[in-house]
């Protein structure tokens, strides 16, 4: 078999188990994101999506299970700048006095010296990232002065400036209008096509079918995983969403 010599996947989480007090947030969850692919993480609120992200980023220690990013521990991967996180809109203080360019520059901090003074290379990387997501003209705006879609692109630009290999996106399409959604979709596809990997949590089932190469249906445990068309079946969705969801056939 060739599995021994093959490069490890971008993300391999095995048997992750996390409990808050007596409540199991994650129960033996396994997720694989192949290098150069986009994986959609689908589930209702409270299904453990945020907990899974936290465990992947090493923000909480699971009771059981392992996380490997590009064959390394989460900690090693973080220290090498392999991972980037694009937060959910409500987790960001949009009144914070930072400009769009400031936010993107934060992607470079892991590569800078202890005082985080930007070198010419850092500035060039920030400029290129802003250019790439189409925000070069808005670089001096305060971050909260952007629209919902522009805000997302600013944080994706931060991941690009970081040159992260794996992007974790928490609800990237929430609060984003249709045309911005299309722009963001194209951007994520381009990043995938240049070999980066993406894990994104989402409610947007239509988006998952269009954009994602694989999907994981989560409800504190993995209900289904594989190709989006195999995962997002009416019966699986009924399990995940408890029948509360009107299912539209694509």
């Amino acid at each position, binding site marked *: 078999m060739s599995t021994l010599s093959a490069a490890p996947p971008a993300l391999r989480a095995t048997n992750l188990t996390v409990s808050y007090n007596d409540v199991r947030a994650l129960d033996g969850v396994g997720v694989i994101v192949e290098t150069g692919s986009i994986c959609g993480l689908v589930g209702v609120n409270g299904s453990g999506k945020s907990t899974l992200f936290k465990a992947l980023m090493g923000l909480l220690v699971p009771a059981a299970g392992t996380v490997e990013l590009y064959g390394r521990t989460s900690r090693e991967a973080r220290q090498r700048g392999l991972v980037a996180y694009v*937060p959910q809109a409500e987790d960001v203080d949009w009144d914070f006095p930072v400009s769009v360019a400031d*936010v993107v520059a934060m992607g470079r901090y*892991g590569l800078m010296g202890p005082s985080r003074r930007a070198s010419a290379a850092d500035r060039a990387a920030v400029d290129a990232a802003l250019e790439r997501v189409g925000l070069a003209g808005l670089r001096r705006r305060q971050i909260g002065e952007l629209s919902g879609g522009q805000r997302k692109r600013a944080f994706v630009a931060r991941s690009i400036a970081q040159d992260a290999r794996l992007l974790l996106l928490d609800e990237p399409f929430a609060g984003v209008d249709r045309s911005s959604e299309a722009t963001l979709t194209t951007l994520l596809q381009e990043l995938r096509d240049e070999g980066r990997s993406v894990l994104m949590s989402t409610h947007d089932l239509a988006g998952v079918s269009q954009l994602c190469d694989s999907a994981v249906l989560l409800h504190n445990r993995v209900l289904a995983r594989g190709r989006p068309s195999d995962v997002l079946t009416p019966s699986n969705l009924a399990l995940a969403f408890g029948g509360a969801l009107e299912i539209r056939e694509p």
Partner: protein
Amino acid sequence: MDLLNWLTEPLQYGFLTRALIVTVAAAVVSAVLSCWLILMGWSLMGDAVSHAVLPGVALAYIVGIPFSIGAFVFGAGAVALIGVVRSTTKLKPDTVIGVVFTALFAAGLAIVSSTPSQIDLLHILFGNVLGVTDGELWQVLILGAVTLAVVLFKRRDLTLLAFDRTHAHVIGLNTKFLSALLLGLLALSVVVGLQAVGIILVVAMLITPGATAFLLTRSFDRMLVLAVGITVAASLAGIYASYYLDISTGAAVVLAQSLVFTVVYLVARPNGVLWQRLRVRRSRRRSPSAEAHVGDAPAGAVS
């Protein structure tokens, strides 16, 4: 010239010159730190640390070591204690902070009251900047310089910590260390500031300048500059008001800062409360039937 006389007359007294230096130095250090504290949501923490240093100051006087050592030990100790209780219970942070700092403050009062002859409680609580000795002046200047140097060197990391702690963690920065660093700097600036305005009011210097600057700008660098400018102006105004009006120096300095905050709150464009009211009234007058959109009217569109 009368004005020149008016300005230089207080400086003929050595104690007033020292008071001026101590107040401005402490105010600048506090103002710089205040920009991060208000963005972190740590104002209550500043209040807690300042009250918690009382037993440290009292013990330092009794033992005969520099007050700043005792104050810093208890300030940092309070922070550590709050951290331990928070992480081992399900109590809300403000509850834990309230329990810890009042306990330490009461312990300080108990120590002071049991040794009444050695310590002047009012000086510790409300500051005694007019009685600052040369030794205390140097403590303030050296600790202030160290605090300022560390804050400015790590300013980008601290801003990242306040803005997006998760990102800081994900790119491999040590967020626990950065939090501890900022808390340590908070304790240091309390130590520096209490000499000027006392334990009770030092927290004002750690909140008001940053809060005022925040209302004026959406750029962090400008916020820093504004906070320092405001606090220096308010300190000078406070010292002169204290001399000519014969009021407590600490109170005068804090009142001057509060006055600047009030003015900015009322008139600063485009967020000032007065401007918003005015815009609503104007747009109502122009189109009485239409609904007034406070935020939509461009500032100064009618003038």
